[in-house]
């Protein structure tokens, strides 16, 4: 390729306190190419995009645009210099029409222009036409379907004719036909000679579109090349699938036969206009270990949040004979359905023991003591760290603390939402062993959400696959390894 390099990133780093979010990332974005920047949640891909746009200052490295150093530039200057960004979530101006929202992007950054240039209107209409919004320019954003809102964001980003376009999760929440329309739009940008960066969770969703893929994990580059090469790359496969898939051999056959502890029927969830869950139905038996696997963005967290009463949903969720709709989020947790969220939600300034004590607030003191002892035995590292502030723990230790705190509530069903998030492989092994011990020593029923299949499979009695807001597969882990292992990524 000999098209000129538009955006060049050299040895870029970003630290948040002690956490290294981006480590020595170098990449080039050429005119007329689409680069996919992929990585699982917490890999630092979105941070790289924010650094490029100047939304956050970088801790080290340089960013150049057409040869000019833009490393320390504020966001609005980067934008003026020719970089446009399509945010995944944005708040449009709700009192203005679609056309006015697009016009906004065309206005000069001036305090004294009280009247817009006359050609702004014509240009705004042309852009609306280009992204397929011409029929709805006079409507207000709140009346638009989700896909049209995304089109509007696209329109705003390209309004000023940027030479570099950054797109965050271009296809999240879109239907198949909409994905096709958006792909065409993005290809259109490339054909006009713009440089396009697509940020997404996985290769699969952008494979058909990208010329090149840059894969990240834990803030670092792990692979670069064509979509096929990256998908075949062993490191990438290990990150997404966790390496070789092994299934549990001590399956709990009896559990499947018992009446289900949890029954989810036809549950749908919408975030505004984006559908996050589409008529999902699952069941979990008493004492069973069920894994829900799916790539980031498939809807796992949404499903768990619906169960925990944190998001409104349609459909029915029954747990231990009660309709969960009748309970508040706090009531659900006390009733025995406890979620250990992806974000962990520890109280950072409190010690390990205080965090655990908080989890056991509704137990009797004697019971609490017993539970605490049992948990400190289950996670010996927490005993050592008892008096330390939980903020100072390593990622793996924090995850164990989060699980332990959830278990302090003495749940009937424990939901683990992506416990492997952002953890190094060696920590995963420790975490896996802890889960193993948990299964052997307690009757707790576990529902695990994971994108890392290797982590999810060995423990599971049964597996569901969630893809694009729907359950697409159900079966035992051995069959999963046979049937889904290859097509999953």
């Amino acid at each position, binding site marked *: 390729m000999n098209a000129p390099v538009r955006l060049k990133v050299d040895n870029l780093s970003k630290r948040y306190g002690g956490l290294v979010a981006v480590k020595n990332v170098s990449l080039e974005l050429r005119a007329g190419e689409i680069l996919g920047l992929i990585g699982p949640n917490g890999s630092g891909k979105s941070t790289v995009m924010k650094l490029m*746009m*100047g*939304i956050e200052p970088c801790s080290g490295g340089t960013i150049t645009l057409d040869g000019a150093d833009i490393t320390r530039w*504020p*966001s*609005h200057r980067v*934008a*003026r210099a020719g970089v*446009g*960004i399509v*945010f995944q979530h*944005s*708040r449009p*101006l*709700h*009192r*203005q029409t679609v056309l*006015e929202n697009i*016009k*906004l*992007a065309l*206005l000069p*950054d*001036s*305090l*004294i*222009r*009280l*009247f*817009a240039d006359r050609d702004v209107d014509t240009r705004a209409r042309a852009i609306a036409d280009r992204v397929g919004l011409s029929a709805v320019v006079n409507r*207000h954003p*709140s*009346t638009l379907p989700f896909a049209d809102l995304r089109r509007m964001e696209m329109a*705003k*980003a390209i*309004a*000023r004719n940027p030479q570099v376009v950054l797109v965050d999760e271009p296809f999240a929440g879109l239907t198949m036909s909409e994905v096709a329309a958006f792909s065409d739009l993005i290809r259109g940008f490339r054909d006009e000679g713009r440089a396009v960066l697509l940020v997404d969770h996985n290769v699969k969703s952008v494979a058909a579109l990208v010329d090149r893929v840059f894969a990240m994990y834990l803030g670092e580059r792990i692979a670069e090349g064509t979509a096929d090469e990256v998908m075949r790359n062993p490191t990438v496969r290990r990150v997404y699938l966790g390496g070789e898939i092994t299934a549990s051999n001590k399956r709990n056959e009896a559990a499947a036969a018992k009446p289900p502890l949890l029954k989810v029927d036809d549950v749908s969830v919408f975030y505004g206009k984006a559908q996050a869950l589409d008529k999902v139905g699952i069941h979990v038996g008493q004492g069973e270990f069920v894994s829900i696997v799916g790539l980031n963005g498939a809807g796992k967290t949404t499903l768990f949040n619906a169960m925990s009463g944190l998001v409104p949903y349609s459909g029915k969720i029954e747990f231990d004979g009660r309709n969960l709709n009748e309970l508040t989020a706090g009531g659900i947790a006390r009733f025995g359905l406890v979620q250990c969220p992806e974000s962990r939600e520890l109280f950072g300034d409190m010690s390990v023991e205080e965090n655990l004590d908080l989890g056991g607030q509704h137990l009797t003191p004697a019971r609490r003591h017993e539970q605490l002892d049992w948990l400190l035995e289950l996670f010996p590292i927490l005993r050592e760290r008892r008096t330390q502030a939980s903020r100072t723990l390593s990622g793996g230790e924090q995850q164990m603390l989060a699980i332990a705190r959830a278990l302090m509530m003495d749940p009937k069903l424990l939901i683990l939402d992506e416990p492997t998030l952002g953890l190094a492989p060696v920590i995963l092994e420790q975490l896996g062993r802890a889960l193993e011990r948990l299964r052997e020593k307690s009757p707790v029923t576990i529902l695990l959400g994971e994108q890392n299949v290797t982590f999810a499979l060995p423990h599971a009695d049964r597996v569901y696959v969630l893809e694009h807001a729907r359950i697409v597969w159900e079966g035992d882990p051995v069959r999963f390894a046979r049937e889904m292992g290859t097509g999953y990524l």
Partner: protein
Amino acid sequence: MQKLLRSPLLWIAVVVVIVAASLPLWMSAYLLGILTAAYYFGVFSMAWDLLFGFAGEVNFGPTFLIGLGAYTAAILDNQLGPPIFVCVIAGAAVAVIGGLALAVPALRLSGPYFGLVTLVAVLLLQNAIVIFAHWTGGEIGMTVPDVLSIDTNENYWYALVFLVVSAILLFGLSRSPVGLILQASGQDKIEAQALGFNVTKHKIAAFCISALFSGVAGAMLIFYLGATSVDTVIDISIGVQVIIAAVLGGRRTILGAALGAIFLILATEFLRPLGQLNTFVVSAVALAVILFFPDGLLGYVLRSGERE
């Protein structure tokens, strides 16, 4: 232009102004006096709405700007006694400078801290006035030798014209490209920046404009009242009234803020027979509106039109 003529808001505004202009013909001098003060309050609230509704910054200290304008004008009039308009201009200038001195550092902070800084500014100003009692009259306040007019009708006209002109300017500004950028900055700062707008610059400009109108209105109010004191132009409770009026009338509408202020002051007046209960009832009504119509009265009307 055609769009403007078809807007129901314009015609409502025209009718309201005509009714307001006819009031001196039949209304009692007492009520006209109340309305005159209410109109200045209307400008306070509109200026505040520009900052809160558009720039998205909650200024808990509108009276810092108002008080700067009022006291500068009063002190100048007492010490040197130039024509009133010179005092008003000086008051406005000091309000803008004070506003800038406050906004530039405060806008570096995010979230509730900006609001807290503005709140502290009011307390500082209040203390400064008490400390420099020799110049300012301290806790008792001070009279000004000059007044706008001694005729009730004339005073009413000054206030009405000032309110209408301010409303046209502020409303026009809010609907201009500058207002659009300001709204975008208030609603999604990161995206506004990514669209190439220097958000800080626009917010500081909004603060200056808000300070300008607050300062002028504050200065004119004391030349109507003939006196100034901490309790009438600076006290936190006055600031709270300005804020409640704007929220009551409708956030992001500018005109609603003026209506809210007039409503609030008239309601307090009409409920005066209730004695001690009066403030309680007015506050309860304001609370109910904020709880059930968070967009405010005018905001609610406009919003129903938006869902077409």
